[in-house]
Structures are given as structure tokens and as C-alpha cells.
């Protein structure tokens, strides 16, 4: 007989209230469709993850999507300028919910060296960011770690920043 059976060892603790929510979380954590926006070092490095050396598919990121309707992870790279923000906002609004955002690289987070009239410094107020990856460019290992973190969060049922605002 199982004498020292403890429920906690066999059940994952989650904040999901219903089974369907839990199922949704689980399935999303297994297959994420990223969409990459912007350009710069970080963008080049993120594309290199899909090359022959870094097997990013093992995280369930099968391919980069360029249609916002098909993506649930937005990766913002490079300096967000006033002009590109017009495009970025439109893309973000057209993504399916629940949606997640990664700010990749120093240039995306704070503008890096480019602190001038073109930089939209408050873009994060309009587009809530879940994970920030510093570095210009971040190493591939750092990017992989950020994806791991994000998947962990999705799986544990942590709400995305967007959902927090909506609540």
C-alpha cells in the first residue's frame, strides 16, 4: 500500500481555476509561435537561433510567424522609434490573446545609445512586456534562457502582463 502518499508530490500547483484553463496553459507552453519585430543585432541573433547550431525548436518554437493573427509571442528588437511604433501597435492589437511580449536587447528596452528625438521611450506603457533580455546583442544562451523562463511562467499559470492590466 502507498503509505507515505502525499498529494502535493503528484499534483502541479497552479493558479488555473478550471480544467480548461489549465489545459490551455499547458498546450500553449508546448507550442509557441513567435513573431519578431524590428531590426538590429538582436534580430540577427534571434534568427540565428533557427540556424543549424541552436536547436530552438526543442522549446516548441517551430518557426517565426509574420502574421500577427497566427502569433502569440511578440519579440521586440532594436530601437522602437516613433515611426515604427505605429506599426508595432497595430501588430500587437491584432495578436490573439493570451499574448506575451519579450523585449530583446538593450536597444529595445531602453534605446541603448540612441537617446534622441526618434526614440519612443514609453512604448512599454502601451505594450506590456513580460520578459526583458539585456545585452547588445544578448548571447544566444541568454535568449534561450528567456524563452525557458517564459515557458515556465506560462506553464505555472502566471498571468501575462496584458491580462494583469485587463483584470
Amino acid at each position: 500500500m502507498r503509505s507515505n502518499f502525499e498529494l502535493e508530490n503528484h499534483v502541479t500547483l497552479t493558479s488555473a481555476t478550471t480544467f480548461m484553463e489549465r489545459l490551455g496553459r499547458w498546450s500553449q507552453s508546448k507550442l509557441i509561435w513567435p513573431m519578431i519585430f524590428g531590426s538590429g543585432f538582436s534580430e540577427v541573433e534571434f534568427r540565428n537561433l533557427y540556424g543549424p547550431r541552436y536547436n530552438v525548436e526543442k522549446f516548441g518554437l517551430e518557426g517565426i510567424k509574420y502574421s500577427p493573427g497566427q502569433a502569440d509571442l511578440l519579440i521586440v528588437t532594436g530601437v522602437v522609434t516613433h515611426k515604427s511604433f505605429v506599426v508595432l501597435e497595430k501588430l500587437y492589437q491584432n495578436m490573439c490573446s493570451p499574448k506575451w511580449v519579450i523585449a530583446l536587447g538593450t536597444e529595445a528596452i531602453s534605446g541603448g545609445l540612441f537617446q534622441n528625438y526618434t526614440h519612443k521611450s514609453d512604448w512599454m506603457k502601451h505594450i506590456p512586456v513580460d520578459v526583458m533580455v539585456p545585452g547588445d546583442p544578448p548571447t544566444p544562451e541568454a535568449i534561450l534562457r528567456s524563452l525557458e523562463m517564459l515557458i515556465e511562467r506560462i506553464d505555472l499559470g502566471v498571468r501575462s502582463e496584458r491580462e494583469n492590466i485587463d483584470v
Partner: protein
Amino acid sequence: MFDFYDQLKQEFGENLKKKDSFLEMKLEAVHFHQLASQLKNKFGFIFLSDICGVDNKGDSKKEKRFTIIYHLLNLEEYCHLRISIDIDEETKLSSVGATWPSSKRLELELRDLLGILFDTELGAGFLNPSDYGGFPLRKDFTPNVNGPVSILSTSFPDDPSIDADQRGVRSWVNIGPHHPVMKNNVRMILELEGEYIRRCQYETGFHHRGFEKQAEKLPWPTLITLIERLNSQAPFMCTSTWCHLIENSLKLQIPERAMAIRMVFIELTRIQDHLECIASCAVAAGNESVYFICQQGRELVYELFERMSGSRLNPALNCIGGVKYDIPIGWITDCFEALKKMDDLLTHIETLFTRSSIWLDRNMVSEINAGRALDLGITGPVLRSCGVNYDLRKVNPIYFYSDVEFEIPLGVRGENYDRYLVRMEEIRQSISIVIQVLDNLPIGEVSKIVENQIPPAGIHYSSLESSNGELGFTVVSDGESDFPWRLKVRSPSFMNIIALPEMIQNRLLDDALMSFSSLNINPGELDR
């Protein structure tokens, strides 16, 4: 060269001055406009490479508000002529677009960023000054951004050459800026008649980061960090050009070993960037396998960079006076091994692409005429694919480029296929250059300590054959202050994109994306 200089001297007299390898001339605005066609037709200055506008506000030595510097090039004699014109704020400048069509895009930049007035209508530029509250490159500019910034609408003005029936069958298509082939940053608006493209507009400026304005705020020694971020595919080219400019202006001789190391890394960067271009052409054609082969080749280069400096994409290696680190032990053997693997990969790409009838059929499109390419100010592999033998490594060799043996591959028809072939051959030539330099690597120190990094007062220009074409920096320094007065980048992507509408006109919609990829536009370099 000497006869040619005499000839010019006779014509222009005392006005013409010789400074290093450049000729300098000061003219009145009206006078220059009259001389333009003479300079082009009589003296062979067929190539307008750059226009740089400088705001003189706050400079007590200058009487007038703006100085406009035209960079003209005589390709046969390799004579670089700089013409500077002083104008007032109210003076209307005449466009020289009739003589040098490449000036149109540069003049748009002058109008949008510096607020120079022109007496003719130029059209839409890449930045709308009213969105930013003024002209950014002026010294008294204070940014004022309210609300969303305007972007072009997906529409064309009526074409007067066709009637209403024909107009009815035409439709408009918008491609980009969020598109894998358009590098996430260029927008193409096409007018289609069935599958054929009749007219094309492109919009840039989504990645305009205010590079030149930012450079005016950074002190001289830290500028190199900014300049690395100009081009994300070939950062080493940018820093090499910059270091070459500062060292030239300070009359500094860098150690021979540093020159050799720079050459090796310039060529490795060129290999990497050309592979990126071929990879993006392959993706545009739907061929994923060649994309992966190219990625494999790029990873080989990245590994070499990482072993050298710890950073994969960006070998932050250059400093004024040489390079920061010496080559580590065992790196040269690794490099030879990587180049051997690279050669195998190139053979693999050639078997898949060069003789493939599908690749050939899809790429025998979008030709550029050699004369037209020169008119439009195109440089680099795109110009050489039209058959023009112009490579700065040959005509103005720096470092040991005159000592190594290499060939300049030339295309014939200027089509996508020629551009592909030229790039493939240039990779092979670069491999041969790297091997030759590493075989004869000079010994000694790799850098000199430079205390004073401020160039003497005046205008300095330096250029290098980067992977996309001629990359040049114009620097205006006052010789005292810690900040540059003005930094202007002559970026090849900015000029090469001018060819796009003419290339894809009357071509199939499918070909548009491949033609765009074959130009190898880099957004950072394009918008700056």
C-alpha cells in the same frame, strides 16, 4: 592624375585646392548649378557619391548658416572632388537632379533633416519634420513629438499615360514593413496590372534612430561604440572605416600587424554579409536548404569572432591606433579549418544554385544598366554586377590590399543572377585574401596608444569598400571640442535602394522580393 589636376587647375584657378588625396573647391550656389553639367561632361565627374549638409549656427568663423558639401568622383582618374557651398537660411538651392539623378534622395534628406529649401518640388521623404517639431540636424532643434507619426498611404497618383479603362484593372498592394524579406523595415507599395508591377514606391525611415544627431552628442573616444551599431550585419566594416578616418586625419601610422588583422576581419565580415544576402535571396525564392547552408557558413565566421573577442556578431576589436587584442594562439589554424569548410559549403551552394535551371530562370530578371547604375550612385557588388570595374580595394588600396593578389569579379547584364554570381565569387576571393594575409602575418605590436583622438579642424572624409558598397564618413571637426560638429554617413544601402523601382518595373510580383533581397539592404545602414 597630374595632367588631369593641371587641366582642372587651368579651368578653376586659385579656387581649387589640393588636400591629401582630395581636391577641394569653394563655390557660390548659383555658380555650382551652372558648372554642374560642365563638371560632368567635360571633366568626367559622373558619380555624385554624397551630399553633406552642415549647420553652422554657433560657429563664429562661418558667416552663413549652412554649408553643403558635394562629393564628386571621377572614376577613370579616381579623383575625388569636394565642392562646398555656403548658403543662407532663406536661400533656395537648385536641385542638381538633372545632372546627377542620385542627388534626388540625398536632397530629400537635406530638406527633411536640415530644412534646406529647394526651388523644385522633391516629393515625399522618409521623415516628416512636422511630426518631430522641426529639423533634427539643426543645432537649435528641440524635439516635440505629439501623437502618432504619419506614414505614407497605400495609394498612387493617377497615371496620365493610361486611360480610365486601364486604370480600372490596376490594383494596389502593400508589402512590408513587417515582412521577413523586407528586413522588417522597408515598405513597398506596388501598383499591379494582373501579376505585373507597373509602378513602385518604397517608404523607409522606420528604423531611423537619429544616428547622425546622436553622434554629435557623444565624445570622440566613445563614438566607436555608436558606429558599431550602424550596420548589424557588418559592424567591423563601419568601425574600420571610422578608425581609418581618424588615423588618417591625425597622420597616424598604425602597426603593420594591426593592419593585417583588420584586413582579415574585414574580409571575414564580407564573407558573412554576402552569405546573408544569398540566404535571404534563397528564402525569398522559397529554398530553405540553401538558407541553412548559408547559416552554417555564417556560424563558422561567428565562431571565429567569438574566439577572438568574445562577442559573436560584433567583434568589438577596433580602436583608434590599431586593434585591441592580438590573435589568440591556435586561432589561425581554426581560421584555416573554417575557411576549408566554407569552401565546401560554397561548392554545395553552387551545385544547388548556380547550375540549377529553376534558379537561373527565376533570377534572369531585374537588370540595371551600367550607365544608369552610375547615375543613381550605386556602388558595391550591385554596381560590379553591371560590369563597372569599381572597387575601392583596387582603386584606392589601403593597408596591404595592393600587395595581396585578388580579382574583382564583374557581371555582364546586371541581373539578379549576376549579383548572385558576383557575390559568390567575391566570397572565394575574400577567402584567398584571408589566407594570403594569414600566411604572411607581420609580427610586432597590435596597437598604439593615442592620447589625442580629436581630429584637426576641417572636413575629413574616408571610405572603405564595405560588403554593400562604398561606406564613407564625412566628419566636420572644430579641432577643440570633445564632440564632432557633424558626422555624415555615406551608406551604400541608402543609395542602392534608389534602383528598386526601376528594377522591378514591368516584372512579376514574385520577382519583386527576390530583387529586393539581391540588393542586400541593411535597415540600420539604410535609415541610420
